[in-house]
């Protein structure tokens, strides 16, 4: 077990290294070099740019050196928590991102929890009452949920709440709290604003999990040990929850691995539509302004986050199901 964990963590480190290369590539992608764009921008903002400042910037990013060394410099800075400076905001990227990242994590994890809280009971119900009217309703709703992209759902929900209820949904905080420091009142305000984003982000995942759970539970319920248990006169609840549900939950846990990146991705788009103060809108604006240190760092952080989640889910899976061998082959 320990051997497996260590190996997974080493693999994770390698992945993060590759990820940093990709992120740096993204920073380098747009035409024109960073320094001239930055100087141009500062001039546009009416700031004076003297030689000393240029030299300080060159030194910080190693811009006078070859690309490979620039990468090493950037990566070294990253390890020390320095992700560069955003010229669009004229702020350190780290300061800009931290609070938004915390909100992104909160929303992603909360949606993930919501997905399971909704999907597991519905999936179990659908499997125990297959082809019942409720099952059909869930199946159809699931199909539509899978087919509707998150951001369109957000748009449609916004439209409906606006026209029918007169609410203007959007944002995570009321106007009074946006600039306030964190307080109990602000947390309560946040909780009030969370449901719509969570529902929107969670739909596709919920639909998928219901489908997987229904399928695997139906398979389990048809097996002989269930018939035996029923023949022995066990109560239905015991029959259901003692083994089949536990077994059927397995593929569900392994889906966290790809559900989490999907949720983070969906969250990015939904945030843009609902204008949530998370990473998404910031990333979009950074990309539009070609503020590449900001954009690259955000891609790096979001992907790293998803990878970390995948690692945690794999470790969870191994600890829940003793049958899974700690081999790479077993995961393929």
């Amino acid at each position: 077990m320990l051997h497996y964990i260590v190996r997974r963590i080493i693999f994770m480190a390698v992945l993060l290294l590759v990820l940093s290369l990709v992120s740096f590539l993204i920073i380098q992608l747009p035409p024109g070099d960073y320094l001239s764009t930055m100087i141009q921008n500062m001039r546009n903002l009416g700031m004076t740019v003297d030689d000393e400042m240029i030299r300080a910037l060159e030194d910080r990013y190693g811009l006078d050196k070859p690309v490979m060394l620039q990468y090493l410099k950037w990566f070294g800075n990253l390890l020390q928590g320095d992700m560069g400076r955003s010229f669009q905001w004229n702020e350190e990227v780290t300061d800009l991102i931290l609070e938004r990242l915390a909100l992104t994590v909160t929303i992603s994890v909360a949606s993930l929890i919501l997905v399971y809280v909704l999907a597991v009971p519905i999936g179990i119900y659908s499997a125990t009452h297959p082809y019942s009217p409720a099952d059909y309703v869930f199946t159809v709703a699931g199909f539509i949920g899978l087919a509707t992209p998150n951001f369109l759902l957000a748009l449609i929900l916004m439209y409906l709440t606006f026209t029918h209820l007169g609410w203007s949904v959007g944002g995570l905080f009321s106007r009074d709290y946006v600039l306030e420091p964190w307080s109990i009142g602000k947390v309560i305000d946040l909780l009030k604003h969370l449901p719509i984003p969570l529902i929107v982000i969670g739909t596709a995942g919920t639909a998928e999990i219901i489908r997987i759970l229904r399928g695997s539970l139906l398979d389990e319920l048809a097996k002989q040990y269930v018939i035996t248990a029923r023949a022995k006169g066990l109560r239905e609840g015991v029959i259901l929850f003692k083994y089949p549900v536990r077994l059927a939950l397995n593929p569900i846990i392994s889906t966290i691995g790809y559900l989490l990146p999907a949720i983070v991705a969906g969250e990015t788009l939904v945030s843009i539509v609902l204008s949530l103060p998370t990473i998404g809108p910031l990333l979009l604006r950074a990309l539009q302004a070609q503020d590449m240190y900001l954009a690259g760092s955000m891609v790096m952080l979001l992907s790293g986050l998803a990878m970390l989640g995948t690692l945690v889910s794999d470790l969870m899976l191994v600890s829940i199901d003793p049958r899974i061998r700690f081999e790479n082959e077993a995961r393929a």
Partner: protein
Amino acid sequence: MSSRRSQDDAPAPTGIARYRIETPAEPSADERGERYYMASSWTLIRRRFLKHRLAVFGSVILLIIYLLAAFAGFFSVADTYERHPDHLFAPPTRVRLFHDGRLHRPFVYGLNVGRHPETLAPVYEDDREQIFPVRFLVHGHEYRVIGLFSSTLHLLGVDRPGYVFLFGTDSLGRDMFSRVLSGARISLSIGLLGVTISFVLGCLLGGVSGYFGGAADMVVQRIIEFLQSLPTIPLWMALAAAVPLNWPPLRIYFMITVILSLVGWTGLARVVRGKILQLRVEDYVMAAAVAGAPERAIIFRHLLPGFMSYLVVHITLAVPYMILGETALSFIGIGLRPPVVSWGVMLQQAQNVRTVALHPWLLIPALFVVFTVLCFNFAGDGLRDVADPYKQ
């Protein structure tokens, strides 16, 4: 088979018997079994697929949507880029059958354009005096038929100064219906092109990974794991934003497709690898290898057809992801850009809730996206059930 039937019929050479010979009799269980064993796997697949109602429904609708897209010019009523400055945000025109309570051939009323006294937004009202019958197969603006030749023939239209905006008009007074049709060409073809690229990559890398194993397998599998653990949208956004703005539309279109396929091939590669690992140890593959067939022939002639049906399933389920990806990127403004028309580009106008609340028809492209994706999912689901026709 025929000899058996004539034996059955022999004892009763009456009219009834003749009748039975003329129309094929209900096949006996034996015959049905025999037919089942004689049928090719594709026949079985087709038969099973046709039993899957939703899948048939989905594929028929898809066929219709693709036909509409291919012949967008013929079905559209106005040029995609033609602006009607005095018909901004005009609501969908209702095609009517009754005038003053009496049945009439299909017609539309003329539009009176007024101004809202406070907001100065255009207000539209039916002018019941003016009647423009809907005419079929009329000549209108010129368009190219699949890029081959020009035509001016359209399915329907009304005489000027009447207009028939089936889905209303957008902020520049362009006909939404015609734009949805011509946007379908981009949105739907990006799915197909992207899947083609993923298909080639997936078969190649998955095949190498599964057939040769060892180090190649290790490397490809790690790449796949890496790509699958990335959140797609931020990565796509970053890559799409790096596409230079001054490129010609066709090149941007192609780049976006490539970006979308970058992650899409991984799922396919996994399927290919798994199936190859499974089939590689079959006797017939061994026999081919012993008979001296080159590796290329073993892969393409013996292994690939063995799981082609699974690939078809996977592709059908992969197309909607590409369509959704394009729509999402274009919607937030870093995918395709105007003047290119795609469903995502059209939805850019629907970003503002207040605009949408006043002009809900701007959301019509979204309905098309959802419906198309839904149909692909139905069709794919049906195909998945029939992918292995010998499985009971």
